[in-house]
């Protein structure tokens, strides 16, 4: 477990460092107020979310191909952490919208994409939770994860079809016009790295947990059988 603890410490340190830069070092964006700094946790969470989603889909594909239980465990964990990250994106995006334009939801295509992806991977998590036996439901869950990624291009294009996007509503993500100050860029990209590290660590721990839990479930079944039907 030592390696995992170091990994966790590293990820946390990176996050703290980025928070320092984001909150204290980076200059305030002109005309937007302090709340603009939410970008430095909003966009990085989105990076991490996509990372998790692609890992989940990739692992699912490997599982369907090789039927490797390790791939399945990775997929399940990545999807769960991905949902967590998506939630962060949606909540911070909502707070930002409320602060800036007095609207808890903005028809931004990127936010819509994130919302739909959140729904897709929540359904993945629910399927795993209520779909019965792990090994049985695994291929079906894998299909969900892969379909989610396949839907991304369609979601992106169709989100832009909605409601003729009013330019001023689109919140600058990686700074549409480019973040001027180098410290701002540091906060953003450093934040992306930090959140990816955090997500990677969470997925690693969650995958280990999944392996142990499944093994214990198997042992429990064996124990029940050994004692006779109790």
């Amino acid at each position, binding site marked *: 477990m030592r390696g995992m603890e170091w990994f966790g410490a590293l990820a946390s340190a990176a996050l703290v460092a980025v928070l320092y830069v984001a909150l204290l070092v980076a200059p305030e964006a002109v005309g937007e107020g302090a709340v603009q700094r939410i970008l430095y946790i909003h966009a990085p969470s989105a990076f991490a979310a996509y990372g998790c989603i692609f890992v989940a889909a990739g692992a699912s594909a490997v599982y*369907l191909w090789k039927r490797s239980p390790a791939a399945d465990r990775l997929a399940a964990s990545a999807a769960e952490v991905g949902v967590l990250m998506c939630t962060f994106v949606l909540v911070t995006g909502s707070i930002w919208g409320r602060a800036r334009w007095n609207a808890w939801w903005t028809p931004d295509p990127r936010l819509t994409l994130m919302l739909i*992806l959140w729904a897709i991977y929540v359904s993945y998590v629910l*399927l795993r939770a209520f779909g019965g036996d792990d090994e049985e439901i695994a291929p079906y869950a894998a299909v969900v994860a*892969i*379909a*989610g990624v396949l839907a991304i291009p369609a979601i992106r*294009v169709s989100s832009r*079809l909605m409601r003729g996007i009013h330019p001023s509503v689109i919140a600058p993500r990686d700074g549409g016009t480019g973040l001027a100050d180098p410290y701002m860029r540091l906060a953003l990209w450093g934040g992306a790295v930090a959140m990816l590290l955090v997500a990677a660590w969470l997925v690693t721990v969650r995958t280990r947990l999944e392996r142990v839990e499944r093994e214990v479930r198997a042992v429990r079944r064996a124990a029940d059988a050994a004692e006779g039907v109790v």
Partner: protein
Amino acid sequence: MRAVLAIVRKDLLIEWRTRETVVTTAVLGILLVTVLAVAHDPTPAAAPALVAPVVWAAVVFTGLLGVERGFLLEREQDCLGGLRGAPIDPTALYVAKLLVNVLLLSVTQAVVVPLTGLFLRVDLWHAVPSLVVVLFLGTVGFAAVATLFAFVTVRLRTRQVMLPLLVLPLLMPLLIAAVKATEAVLGPGLGTARDAVGVLVSFDVIFVTAGLLLFPAIIRD
């Protein structure tokens, strides 16, 4: 591909004899349209804007119910085991179920769509050819996803809830594009809906292909 035709024939024959799916889903569709039209009670000016969303809400609602039955049939008396044992390519099973679903859904739509026009007092006749195209494209995409996930959920006790839960988020882009395309068809014309139709076509291609590739992977067990 003879297998595909055989399965399609079998399913359609069952449907023809019992008429259970088409009748129940068509009636449900009518009820839904009635409720939506009556509840909203739009002014004559506002009514045309309602046609597209009402039609597609009805398509989704009835579609989810109708598609369930496709694999439910197979579970009875373990027909699925029989199908797996037979030297049939699993993709044939998927294609067959897909075709049957598209057909049955189209039949339901043939009833529900004119009725929507009736209730909302909107003239749909001038747009029929384009409307048929849009409905077809949307239905194929819907069926591609729904058929795949109907197989996934048919084994679950919670299937009635899990199917919409899994399918609706994935269908969002299709629905957005379908509604936009339908609105364009009823208004300025299909030409203005190029982007929306593009989304429909690419969605169809992506997800029919996905279904063809993924279905064999999950039927193996």
